[in-house]
């Protein structure tokens, strides 16, 4: 006869708060109950030696033997969620505690704290070792993401994006709300599994799936307003007119010239202030973002359907971005052993931001035809429209006379850019045996881009001529990537101590890219533009292109864990790619890593200090495909035309464009990493630190070959670059309980060095568009130095009157620029060009804080960089004397005001009176590559502050709403920086990473205030 006893009690958590819903089970029986709303329970136990097991999600289970007691007070400890967290790795997932590589993990719910529209913006400052550079503030613009520095010169440095296992995606089209987690793979052990595409790091995106429980309907609404964050300080009309007159007065070499503006005009300008062109082209821009998600799961089916709509106007007039997106993630258990998932995502993005900065193609008139650059230099003395109602034109002979009305340049171009993205992914999972699973996946990314533009008669590019008006462009790109992966995984615990996970994969990928581009001009009618190219009388350019690529891969990985203490991982991948040269079609990428979980060792456990302590080390080789399709072949191109037949029209010629290089192969990165993870105070303080050393060799660079081959160079694998760095991620919960504070800090240091460039010691990169007096090679890569180096003339201020004799030695007067005579030879010429700045930061950091008190929560996110410089090219014309608008000109040197860095106005007649001065300065067309324009662009920015309030649940129960949160958010509100341009986070020239760091006519950043509401049904 079994003894029966009634046992009751209450279950608390560590802060003495009762926990309802805790499962209480008698060990070894099926007798059980759950605690009620007050945490109380009552259960009949049978037999002697009964024990009760208390378990609840998020807490460590507790087993208590009943003995003679009948009442219990049970305290449950929150389980260290961090360590049992599952982290997605390439081709599988692992518990965080058993990771041997360097991987950062960001939960989706942390992403949506920030009201962002693009996934790339959400990544900024969240992971150590990841740099996110927002090169432009334009709505819908993409950011540059670099993981652990820049490895390649010509092969591309973008990380591989993997979305639900499909490789080669783009971040921009995704809806941040759909993301369950993002894992960033950084070291060789984590990335070598992606072989010839892993060298730049890998970003794994996992999207949400429906969760068991009652169906959830989630609606999010964000509405807000964006304004220009920082306005450039420009002169008003009166000061500008005086300044122009002052400049005109200096042109007195042949007698005093008449002033540009009369005194009467200046009085009127002082009264009405003139035109503030920045006010004309910038505006307050609204933004709204709607998300609706329906998700849930039954026993056999899980589903998630989400739709989103973003409507973001831009702070520059006539610019906007809209995105419509739909996702359906479905999963079903076909049988107990077969599971099927189908993911579909579609989005349409429409934007109309015009080409700005260095992406202005040659047909566009350059900086002065484009509104963002010309607004900084256009005449404040001119009204936006002249007396005839037409846009004011530049004043001939005064100032920037070849520039165009900024309002017209902003308002008149008709631009329609649209991208349609379709991502489809299907998985079939088979549980073959215990521990043996097979997953067969098939997926496709299909991307359709159509960009049209029409510059009508009111723009500089399309202004009317005798032959017609307007210029239109039409560009269309179709690209698709197909992938099939077959993943066999064996996961088995041998005995109690040997845990082995082995993964073998066979994979094939196919990509195809087709593009068409047309430019036509001289339309008879100034209306239809790119929608009726037949109306153009001239076809300026036409081109079309199609290419394919194939990648076949075999890979395997073995994870071995002994006693949960000693971990080792070995991976190997072979990639056969169609883009590699005929002699090097297959590349092999191994990696190996080990880790020691000291926290599981008894001597550490005795310390009762560490909840987690792990040492890890890894080494491996990854690759960067970098080669364009067909680049290893000797391609024929048309264009070498010549009248071979001697007829009236010329004959088409086809020439060999490049030398074939059948030996061409991938760039190869060898990386070693050592890391330490620890957690103390039961996980309330965690730290993860890594030191890494990467060398990328076999860089794709031009190798010089003899001219008798018919070519000057051949693309070859020569050259190497090194990146060394240190990353730190600190996490903590300084406060828990009613008031809680969770804080995360990441900081990354990276040192980059070019080791070898093959035959040359330097490579030159463009840093300017024509007409700015900056010759080629402003940005250079030199052996022994890093990316981002700027080369020019040093600036040592302005010659003072007391230094007249020194100035005279160079043929200069006090008040002129004192150049740095770097080699001290008494001349200023090309031999004095030295490094004048560097756009690489010494370190970057991000600091995330979340405070919660009752139903309120406040999050504060701070990020910044230190030690990087930007070349503020916009200042060149804005601070020139002949066309300057900057208020700095009011601070120019005079004999009584010598403490300034702005040169003085010196009359031609003054020069004429010093015939003894012979200039030793020959800067040629390079006078503006000056250190004067190099500025410190370090910054600390309170990127986001969000204050939210979650309504008490009892208020809403009767409406069927389970949760309502309202919040207000401010983005980019506070920035501390010495940079005087629109934003220290900027880059106008981005075709090559070596060009990053120049500010010329880029779209400024906005500061945004938004309100949001979050409803869960």
């Amino acid at each position, binding site marked *: 006869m079994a003894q029966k006893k009634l046992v009751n009690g209450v279950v608390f958590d560590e802060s003495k708060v009762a926990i309802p819903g805790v499962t209480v089970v008698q060990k070894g029986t099926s007798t059980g109950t759950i605690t009620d709303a007050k945490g109380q329970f009552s259960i009949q136990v049978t037999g002697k030696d009964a024990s009760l097991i208390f378990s609840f999600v998020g807490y460590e289970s507790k087993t208590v033997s009943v003995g003679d007691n009948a009442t219990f007070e049970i305290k449950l400890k929150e389980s260290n969620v961090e360590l049992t967290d599952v982290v997605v790795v390439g081709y599988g997932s692992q518990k965080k505690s058993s990771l041997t590589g360097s991987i950062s993990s960001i939960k989706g719910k942390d992403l949506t704290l920030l009201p962002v529209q693009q996934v790339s913006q959400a990544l900024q400052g969240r992971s150590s070792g990841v740099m996110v550079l927002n090169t432009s503030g334009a709505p819908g613009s993409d950011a540059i993401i670099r993981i652990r520095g820049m490895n390649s010169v010509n092969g591309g440095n973008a990380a591989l994006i993997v979305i639900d296992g499909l490789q080669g995606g783009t971040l921009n089209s995704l809806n941040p709300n759909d993301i369950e987690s993002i894992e960033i793979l950084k070291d060789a052990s984590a990335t070598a599994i992606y072989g010839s595409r892993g060298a730049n790091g890998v970003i794994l995106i996992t999207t949400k799936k429906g969760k068991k429980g009652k169906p959830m309907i989630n609606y999010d609404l964000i509405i807000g307003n964006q304004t220009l964050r920082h306005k450039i300080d420009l002169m008003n009309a009166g000061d500008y007119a005086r300044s122009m007159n002052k400049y005109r007065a200096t042109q007195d070499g042949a007698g005093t010239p008449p002033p540009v503006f009369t005194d009467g005009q200046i009085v009127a300008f002082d009264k009405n202030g003139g035109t503030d062109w920045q006010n004309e082209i910038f505006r307050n821009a609204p933004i709204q973002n709607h998300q609706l998600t329906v998700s849930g799961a039954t026993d056999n089916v899980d589903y998630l359907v989400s739709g989103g709509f973003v409507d973001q106007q831009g702070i520059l007039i006539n610019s906007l971005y809209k995105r419509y997106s739909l996702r359906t993630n479905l999963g079903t258990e076909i049988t107990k052993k077969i599971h099927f998932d189908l993911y579909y995502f579609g989005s349409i993005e429409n934007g109309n931001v015009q080409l700005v900065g260095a992406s202005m193609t040659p047909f566009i008139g350059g900086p002065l035809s484009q509104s963002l650059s010309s607004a900084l230099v256009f005449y404040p003395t001119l009204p936006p429209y002249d007396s005839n109602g037409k846009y004011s034109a530049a004043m001939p002979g005064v100032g920037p006379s070849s520039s165009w009305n900024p309002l017209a340049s902003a308002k008149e171009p008709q631009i329609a850019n649209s991208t349609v993205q379709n991502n489809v992914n299907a998985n079939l999972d*088979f549980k*073959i045996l215990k521990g*043996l699973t*097979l997953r*067969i996946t098939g997926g496709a990314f299909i991307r359709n881009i159509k960009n049209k533009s029409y510059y009508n008669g009111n723009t500089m590019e399309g202004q009317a001529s005798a032959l017609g008006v307007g210029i239109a462009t039409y560009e269309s790109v179709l690209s698709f990537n197909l992938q*099939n992966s*077959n993943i*066999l995984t064996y996961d088995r615990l041998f005995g109690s101590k040997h845990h082995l996970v082995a993964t073998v994969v*066979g994979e*094939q990928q*196919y990509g195809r890219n087709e593009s068409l581009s047309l430019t036509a001009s001289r339309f008879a009618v100034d209306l239809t533009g790119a929608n009726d190219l037949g109306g153009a009388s001239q076809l300026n350019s036409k081109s*079309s*292109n*199609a*290419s*394919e*690529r*194939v990648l*076949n891969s075999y890979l395997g990985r073995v994870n071995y864990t002994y006693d949960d203490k000693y971990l080792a991982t070995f991976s190997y991948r072979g990639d056969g*790619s*169609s883009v590699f040269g*005929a002699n090097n079609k297959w590349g092999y990428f191994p990696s190996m890593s080990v880790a020691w979980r000291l926290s599981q060792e008894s001597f550490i456990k005795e310390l009762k200090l560490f909840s987690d302590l792990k040492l890890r080390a890894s080494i491996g080789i990854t690759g960067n495909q970098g080669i364009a*399709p*067909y680049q290893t*072949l*000797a*391609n*024929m*191109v*048309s264009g*070498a*035309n*010549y*009248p*071979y*037949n*001697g*007829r*009236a*029209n*010329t*004959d*088409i*010629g*086809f*020439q*060999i464009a490049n*030398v*074939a*290089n059948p030996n061409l192969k991938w760039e190869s990165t060898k990386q070693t990493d050592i890391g330490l993870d620890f957690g103390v105070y039961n996980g309330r303080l965690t730290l993860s630190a890594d030191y890494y050393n990467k060398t990328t060799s076999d860089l794709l660079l031009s190798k*010089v070959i*003899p*001219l*008798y*081959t*018919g*070519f*000057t160079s*051949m693309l070859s694998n020569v050259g190497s670059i090194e990146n060394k760095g240190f990353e730190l991620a600190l996490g903590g919960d300084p406060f828990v309980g009613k008031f809680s504070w969770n804080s995360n800090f990441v900081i990354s240091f990276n040192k980059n060095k070019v080791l070898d460039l093959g*035959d040359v010691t330097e490579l030159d990169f463009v840093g300017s568009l024509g007409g700015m007096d900056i010759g080629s090679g402003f940005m250079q890569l030199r052996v022994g130095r890093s990316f981002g180096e700027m080369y020019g003339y040093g600036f040592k201020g302005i010659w003072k009157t007391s230094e007249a004799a020194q100035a005279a030695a160079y043929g200069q007067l006090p008040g002129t620029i004192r150049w740095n005579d770097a080699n001290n030879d008494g001349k200023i010429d090309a031999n004095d060009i030295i490094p004048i700045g560097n756009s690489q930061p010494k370190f970057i950091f991000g600091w995330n804080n979340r405070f919660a008190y009752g139903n309120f929560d406040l999050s504060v996110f701070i990020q910044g960089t230190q030690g990087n410089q930007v070349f503020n090219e916009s200042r060149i014309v804005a601070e020139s004397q002949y066309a300057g608008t900057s208020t700095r000109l009011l601070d120019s040197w005079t004999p009584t005001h010598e403490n300034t860095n702005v040169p003085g106005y010196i009359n031609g007649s003054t020069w004429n009176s010093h015939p003894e001065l012979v200039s030793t300065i020959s800067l040629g067309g390079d006078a503006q590559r000056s250190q004067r324009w190099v500025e410190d662009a370090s910054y600390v920015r309170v990127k986001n502050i969000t204050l939210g309030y979650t309504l008490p649940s009892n208020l809403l129960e009767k409406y069927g709403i389970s949760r309502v949160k309202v919040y207000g958010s401010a983005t980019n509100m506070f920035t501390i920086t010495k940079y005087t341009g629109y934003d220290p986070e900027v880059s106008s020239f981005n075709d090559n990473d070596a060009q990053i760091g120049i500010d010329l006519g880029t779209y400024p950043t906005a500061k945004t205030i938004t309100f949001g509401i979050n409803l869960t049904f």
Partner: protein
Amino acid sequence: MKNNIRKIVGYLLIIPITFVLSCKKLDVPPISSVTSSNFGQSATQIEAAYTASMNFLWGRYYGYADVIFYVFQNDDQWQGGNLVIPANNGDLLWQMHYQALTNINNALLAIKQGRVQGETPQTIAALTGEGKLLRAHNYFNLVRLFGDVPLITEDTPDPANNLMARSSVKDVYTLIVSDLQYAADNLPDSWSNAPGKPTSGTAKSLLAKAYLTMATYPLNDPNYYQKAADAANSVINSGTYALTDSCVNVFKPENKYSREMIWSYNSTYDDRTSSARSWAPSEWLTGGWDGAPVDTAFEHHWTAQPRKDAYLLLGLNGQPYTTAFVTATPYVKKFFYYITESDFNKNQCATNLPIIRYADVLLIYAEAANQANGGPTQAACDAINLVINRANGYVPNAGHPLLTTRMSKQNFDNAVIQERNWELCFEQPDRWFDICRKRILDKVSAPYPQELANYSPNDYLFPIPQADLKTDKLLTQNPGYPTP
């Protein structure tokens, strides 16, 4: 158990099956571009390659349209020149000829491999002949400019990966001769509706010139004089070519494909030559660029004759060049004077630069026959007298008399060379090559003692480009020039 195993095997088979069935090959051929290994499948494509090869030699502001303005300064026709030849003097010429050769060799390889479809053997032979003629033309210039040069044909293994040494002048000429002979045998006498294409007459004329050059420096093999004479004679006897009636008409735009022009660098209005303004003085119409001032000593030595006025601009508006032009030198009329005023002012002209013309062939015959015979033959005199007579406007000119068989071999030879100097003036690089093969650089520099002080026999060859000497250690530099 068996069931299980079958299930497992069944599942596992799915992997290789899905893989192999849909596996795409790694050798993906390009779909929007052609590569050199599958180009050349029709006659049109082959000729497109030949067209490109000529494009490298002649275009607006590059190729022979540009290079001649500064690398041949040391002859006696251009004003200036100091016989200090810089190390980069030959760089552009070397590069452009080898660019042309790469494309010609690739086309010849395509024909050799039988890639050309749908053409008769005759057409294929003619196509090959065109390619060989173009190749010979390039090597003929290279060997005369640089001496020993790397010899690359369609059979040469990939030069980008196999460094080459310089082949001897003799070997280069062997290729030139065999290529031109093939062309002479296989090219038609004329092409319908293609006056600018090379013909068998072109091949024979170039062959004659090649033989003549082989008979003089540096090979100095007198056996070739007879061959040169025979080749030139076959061109003369073919009846295809004839001299234009008057010197004034030779370079008129409407005559650019006249019976005198055997082969030229062609231009059209949509593929213009370099500007006529490069040739004209700044005082001419809306202004030239003073790019081609004529050496005054050259002008002084030119005896009076109608041809002189037809080829040289000796003054303007009644003023002689010493006062009419700011440079105080004459200018050569050939490439700017005869075009329309509107073309000049709009900076567009489509004049050709003759590579070889009938007058040249007559003079080659005269020189070769004289040398082969140990003295001028009647035929030799007849040939050169056609040129002299035209130059004199078909009237006797005591200052520029017709030649007779009574002259000595040496005097006749000197007269031929002088006739070439005048007739072919500024049709570069003819004069430079004559100076080199006759070894008269010191003689023609005599009027300028300062220039002569810099003379050395090394000046007859241009320097090999420094870039190639650096990348290919098998190459040697010509004597007297620096090595990197």
